[in-house]
Structure formats: C-alpha cells, structure tokens
C-alpha cells in the first residue's frame, strides 16, 4: 500500500513537470508563430515577449509554490472544514499561518522553467539590460509577488462576508491575462488591468523595466502598490476575523 502511495506521488511529479512544460511550450510556440510574420507586436519584440513570458512563468511558479497551497479554495478548506479554527489557536500570526504556512516545492519547477525562458529572451535581445534594469526588475518582481499574495488574501477574505462565493476560477482566468503585455489590450481593459486588478504588475511592468531601462516613477508606484495592497489585505483579514462566526459545530 505504501508502495502504491509513493508511486502515486511519483506519477504526480511527472504530470506536474509535463504540465508545466506544455503550458509554457504552447505559450512560447504561439509567440514564435506570431513573430514569423511580424517583427513587433504592440511595440514588443520577440526577445521582449520571451522575457515577459519568462517573468510571468516565474511569478506564477512562486504563486503556485507558496500561495496557492494555502489560499486556493479557502471558503471550502479554510472555513467549512475548520482549518482556520486550528490556525487561530496557534501562537503565531493567523494571517501568516493561513496564507503562507504550506508550500508545494514541486511547483518550483515552474520557476526554473521561467528563469530559463527569461535567460533565453535576454540572450537574443538587441541590447543586454543594465544593472539598474536588473535591480528594478527584481524590485518589481518582488512587488508583483506581494500584490499577488495580497489579492489572494483579499479574495479569501470575501469568504467571511459571502461564504458561498468561490471566485478562484475567475481569479485564475484573470491571471492568464498577465502573460500578455498590457499594450496589446484595448484602453479600457488596459486601465482595468493596471489600476484595478493589477495583473500588469506581474509581468508587463517588470519586463519593461528590465529591457527598456528603469523609470523611477514606475518603480515607486510598484513598491507603493505592494505596500498598499499588503496593508489592505491585513486590514481585511482582521475585519473578517471579527465577523467570523465559525462554520463547524
């Protein structure tokens, strides 16, 4: 029986790797096909697109490794199955326990793949990024990850007010939009994705900074957005707990 179990886990590993490869592969293939016909797309070159896909994959990997195992389907697992009650009893910040205490290291493979594509993109770029570009890319990736975490927390917090609402599917579809540069979208959608539901931050903005040089304003805005989103998430969490009435008897 234990043999069966370990085999099941190994099969999982293989599937995860295959899945990550195909997901990334199709994204890259689509870009390569487009660029056999055109040199730029919405002002983005092939190399820039690859950098974008790499960055997107990297942050997605970080999300699925550290955030998703904790917060996805939170209304179901967290509240209805009583996991939150357990966290609330432990002498450590409950927000940390509920949002970051678990991880699935296998998903780090996505981060590795993302880094690979990123290097490829940088390799074929016309001019290699300067030190300032790399630093601001790093800062913005961190900011993007923080915003991602905050959005997941806010989404989970909705469960305190509307326990039946499960927006994970919506969130994950919106997430897919992050893999395209915001310049390809029509203006209203672009504004929405930049300011309201900042998917732009997870890939477009860092990639731009890396390849076209840093802009102080963007950098500052990214850091502020991250701080603001994190503060908002923490506040919502506290307000939510105040309302929490428990779901298990």
């Amino acid at each position: 029986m234990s043999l069966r179990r370990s085999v099941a886990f190994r099969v999982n590993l293989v599937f995860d790797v295959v899945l990550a490869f195909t997901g990334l592969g199709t994204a890259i293939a689509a870009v390569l096909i487009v660029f056999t016909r055109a040199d730029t797309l919405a002002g983005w070159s092939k190399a820039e697109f690859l950098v974008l896909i790499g960055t997107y994959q990297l942050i997605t990997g970080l999300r699925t490794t550290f955030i998703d195992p904790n917060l996805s389907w939170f209304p179901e697992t967290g509240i209805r199955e009583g996991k939150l009650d357990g966290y609330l009893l432990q002498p450590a910040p409950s927000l940390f326990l509920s949002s970051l205490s678990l991880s699935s290291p296998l998903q780090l493979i996505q981060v590795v793949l993302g880094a690979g594509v990123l290097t490829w993109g940088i390799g074929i770029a016309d001019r290699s990024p300067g030190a300032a570009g790399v630093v601001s890319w790093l800062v913005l990736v961190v900011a993007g990850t923080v915003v991602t975490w905050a959005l997941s927390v806010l989404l989970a917090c909705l469960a305190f007010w509307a326990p039946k609402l499960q927006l994970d599917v919506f969130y994950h579809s919106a997430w897919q939009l992050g893999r395209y540069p915001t310049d390809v979208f029509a203006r209203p959608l672009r504004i929405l994705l930049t300011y309201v539901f900042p998917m732009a931050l997870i890939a477009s903005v860092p990639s731009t900074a890396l390849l076209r040089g840093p802009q102080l304003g963007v950098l500052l805005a990214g850091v502020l957005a991250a701080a603001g989103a994190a503060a908002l998430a923490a506040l919502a969490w506290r307000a939510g707990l105040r309302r929490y009435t428990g779901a298990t008897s």
Partner: protein
Amino acid sequence: MTAAVEVENLSMSYKAPVRKGGLRAAFGSLVRREYKTVQALDEVSFTIAPGEVAGFIGPNGAGKTTTMKILSGILHPTGGAVQVLDTVPWQRRSAFLKRIAFVRGSQPVGGSQELTVMDSLEYQRLLYDVPRATFRRTLAELEALLDLEPLLERQLRALSLGERMRVGLAMALIYRPEVMFLDEPTIGLDVSAASQIREFVQEYVEQTGATVLLTSHYMADVASLCPRLILIDKGKVQYDGPLAELSARLSPYKLIRISTQGDPSPFGEVVDKADGRWVLRVPRDEVAGTTARLLQALEVVDLAVEEPPLEKVIDQAYREGLR
C-alpha cells in the same frame, strides 16, 4: 488567586437568513432577505477556579462549542466579558495561546496529514517554543500515558479515530497548557478507548494542576472526571454546582431494588419487575421509612437503594428543563 476562567454575561448572536419553503419564497428572498437572529448564548456567566475540572453539559445546539470557541479566542462574542488566565481570549496574544489548549473530539488533529506523528510534535515544539529538554521529558511522559510509542512514525492520515484522539491530546499537551478546553474528547470512541482517554485526563490534571472545561454527551465522562457541572440549554446556564446536587434536584426519587416472593407494590411505584425482582420508585425523604416497612412486611431476599441513572436524569432535564 484569581479565577482561571471568568465569564460574565457572555452573549453571542448571529443573523441567519431564513425563508419559507417553495420556489416563490426562494425568488422572494433574492429581493428582500429576511434574517432571523439566532441567540446562541444569552448572558452566560460562570467562573472556574485554577485546577478545577468542570463538566459542561447540555443538549445539541445549546451553545457549548460556541462558548469554548470564544474562550479559546477563535470567535468574537457579541456581548459580555471574558477573562481566561487574566487575558481577553480573542485578542489572541501568543503568550496567552501558549497557555491554553482546545481539543475537539470531532477533529482532534489538524495540520498536514502527510506528516508523521513525531514530525507534527516537533512542529508543535517549534511553534510553541518548548525548550528541548522539557519537550523530551514531556514526550516521555505522554508516551507512557497515551501509549504513543507505536504511533510516532505513522502518518497522521493513516491513524484510526482512537489513535487520532490520543495524538490530538499529545499534540495539545506537549506544551503543557494550564487551561484545557476539551470538546467531546470521547466522541465515537469504543468503551476501552474512551476510558483510556478519561484516565489520562485525570492523571494529567493530578500531575499538573491544570484547569479543565470538558463537554461530553457521555455521562460516564462527566461522572468520573468532573466534581462540578455546568448545564447549559438554549444559550442559558440552567445549573451550576456539584453533580450529586443536580441529580437530587432533578429527581426527587430514589430507586429501591428488591428481591422477594411477596408483592411490594403497595409500598411504592413499580418501575420494573421480573421473576421476583422488583424496582420501586420512592420519594427521596421516605426511603428510610419505606425500606423499614418493606423489611417488616415481606420476606426480603435482597434489597438495595440506588440513585436513578444519571443518563435518565439528564435526559429529563434536557426535555423538561429545571424547575
């Protein structure tokens, strides 16, 4: 010394949406929602002294679990004041959380089910900041008391219900809490597993002087562990005092069990009879007189005076309330 648990006028209410059956009402509730306020706890007050073991009983839905969740800081109440170890529980200070434990029979062990028992205990050690030496000593004691040795290397998810409960207790007690809330610790356990848990709780309390509030639907748990009972029903405390007094108050009768060839029916209400053995129900204060008269009038082979079974008494209390 101040009380370990102090509850004053604790109230908890929440709004639940209600609607009548049928499609029309279902659509109607989309437009205008009607809520009913459910009063889970209504001005509950009690105190528990340090080192005391109190039983917390009441029918399903009486508010026992809600009270325990408030006392352990999971829920914010809507009214009243609570102090556990001189702290307001729902502030959830870590210093406070390290001194209490809340163990639920329905879900004794949380956390990652793939971890082994030993891993989970190590995790608790880190989380609760238990010094290594203390940890090792406590673990050795718990191993002996709870028979943990064969379980340490197993995964949590592969444990049976009884084993889970033992592990759940070990996880909670490894950091030596001063106040324990045990919510139906023996639910679903077989007779011997349940009595093992009971003995263990008893021993732990004797060794450490911990304060315990325990709920259970099994009167055996309550009778063997708790000198004091708090009976709660419909969110209100109905009785708070020693077990013996409760049964005296609830049941003004005693049972006389008698074996005789004669007919004792004139002496009291016959509850049960089978081939020469009778059970009579007699008012409490007449027991002595009736017994004497029985012995005089009949050829008695055997006679015993008994309290009515606690289960029956409690059942009566749940259904009719206390007078």
